[in-house]
């Protein structure tokens, strides 16, 4: 409950800064974190997002960023569409709704990441013909009402990618459209959905406060970073939704269990590691290695060289991959660490031990010039003497340390 409330701050931040992403965050938050049924969550998100974007709109309008001439007709059309979508939604099964939602998010994120070139023409006037504006508005609204997304993540790209509106103005104008169609969609749901009011009201208040705050700082953020942040946020939530759906749809099939739940046989694991290393080499011409990136990660705040390097991105990808594996395999977050929990008692000593071991790993890898990936897999395969020596030393020290721990602990 407290978790859910504090997370609703992000809804407000996303709306105020990015002009969208409110319901993308609100729907999974309500369903997965707070356990609200899908349709009630969709309806609640419309109210939360409607109120929140109205508040953010006021801040942006004061800064003169709202393009009313485009926003109003777009919004009118979107309201119509959203009402239609909201009415139809009761005839569509939940799983289809969520899958639709996920697919839409992925395609939007990809479009936003690729849209770099288009939006650089930032000062071109937005002069799409009225009929186009109305048509886009209808389509965006219908989708939004159907899946309960206020649609900012469709409106902002529509304004930026199709019309060439600058990012900041698109964000502001999208807020106008979102608040109009959210209220319309909400009304469409009113007749046939029960609301968890006790949850919705405090969430709305928190998100609204956060959005006003975000609207105030929005002027200082680079539009380029805005768009990237927007795209990655959407992508992450999409992964989460799709993984959950895939699991509930195919979780009972044996093939699914073999691929996503049981540990792969060693030879499949080795094959896959080799395939990834070769793919990275051929497609990006990079030699697989993790530990050099760890040093760059530490220098990230004050080194432009590290910021433009491929390694920190690769490392971020590894985290993402682990997340996908856990989501599809159905593993919840945990503090447990296998049988280490029997060797060390208590959370604080365990974390201290891991931190100390991390110190040995990081420093050792940099002194040795590589770690398990760089030395023991790639280096050895290249036939480098240094890598064979390093791998031998890793192993010897590993054996000795494990034996020593066993001895000190009296044989576990």
């Amino acid at each position: 409950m407290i978790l859910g409330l504090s997370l609703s701050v992000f809804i407000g931040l996303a709306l105020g800064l990015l002009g969208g992403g409110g319901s993308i965050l609100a729907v999974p938050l309500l369903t997965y974190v707070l356990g609200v049924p899908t349709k009630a969550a969709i309806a609640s998100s419309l109210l939360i997002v409607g109120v929140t974007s109205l508040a953010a709109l006021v801040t942006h309008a004061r800064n003169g960023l709202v393009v009313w001439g485009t926003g109003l007709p777009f919004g009118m059309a979107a309201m119509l569409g959203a009402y239609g979508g909201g009415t139809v939604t009761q005839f569509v099964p939940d799983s289809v709704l969520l899958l639709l939602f996920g697919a839409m998010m992925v395609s939007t994120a990809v479009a936003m990441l690729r849209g770099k070139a288009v939006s650089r023409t930032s000062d071109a006037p937005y002069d799409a013909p009225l009929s186009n504006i109305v048509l886009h508005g209808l389509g965006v609204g219908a989708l939004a009402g159907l899946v309960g997304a206020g649609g900012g993540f469709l409106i902002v790209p529509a304004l930026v990618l199709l019309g060439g509106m600058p990012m900041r103005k698109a964000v502001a104008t999208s807020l106008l459209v979102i608040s109009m169609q959210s209220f319309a969609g909400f009304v469409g749901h009113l007749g046939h959905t029960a609301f968890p009011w006790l949850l919705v009201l405090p969430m709305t208040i928190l998100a609204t406060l956060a959005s006003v705050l975000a609207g105030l700082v929005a002027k200082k953020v680079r539009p380029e970073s805005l768009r990237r942040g927007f795209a990655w946020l959407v992508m992450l939530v999409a992964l989460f939704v799709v993984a959950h759906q895939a699991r509930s749809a195919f979780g009972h099939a044996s093939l699914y269990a073999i691929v996503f739940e049981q540990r792969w046989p060693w030879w499949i694991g080795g094959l896959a590691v080799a395939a990834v290393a070769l793919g990275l080499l051929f497609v990006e011409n990079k030699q697989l290695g993790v530990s050099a990136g760890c040093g760059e990660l530490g220098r990230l705040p004050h080194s432009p060289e590290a910021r433009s390097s491929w390694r920190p991105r690769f490392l971020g990808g590894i985290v993402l991959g682990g997340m996908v594996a856990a989501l599809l395999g159905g593993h919840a977050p945990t503090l447990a660490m296998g049988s280490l929990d029997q060797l060390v008692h208590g959370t604080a000593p365990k974390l201290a031990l891991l931190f100390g071991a991390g110190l040995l790993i990081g420093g050792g890898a940099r002194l040795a010039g590589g770690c398990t990936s760089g030395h023991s897999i790639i280096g050895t395969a290249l036939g480098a003497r240094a890598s064979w020596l390093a791998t031998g030393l890793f192993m010897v020290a590993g054996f000795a340390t494990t034996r020593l721990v066993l001895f000190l602990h009296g044989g576990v």
Partner: protein
Amino acid sequence: MAKIVGFGALFGFVLSRAGATDYDAIRGMFLLRDLHLAGVMATAIALLAVSFALLRRRATRALNGQGLALASKPMTPRLVLGGLLFGAGWALSGTCPGTALAQLGEGRLAALATLAGILVSATTVEAWQSRAKQASPPGH
């Protein structure tokens, strides 16, 4: 650059699915009770050794048209100390830098402590090494 993130994600996914993020798998390998991960590494090394030899003989080029960026790491005296320290840390934590990142993604939150240690010491040692390199003339 999105492709790099994609390859990273593939690598993390594979590490996780192959069981390399499992503390007990690493411990099992060092106790010689569960040679699963040794098998994973040996398979990968064998396949890559053959692939690298073929790619080098044919002088295959990467997609960007340049020669493949494959470089052997140099032999240095400090490699011995580094290798021993790394091995000790590997056995204690049951993880190496790549798998620690994947563990974090999996939601094994204790990996945050391991990663914090790795980042602190990797950054410190690198800073120290680059200062030492500036102080003395280049060359190994």
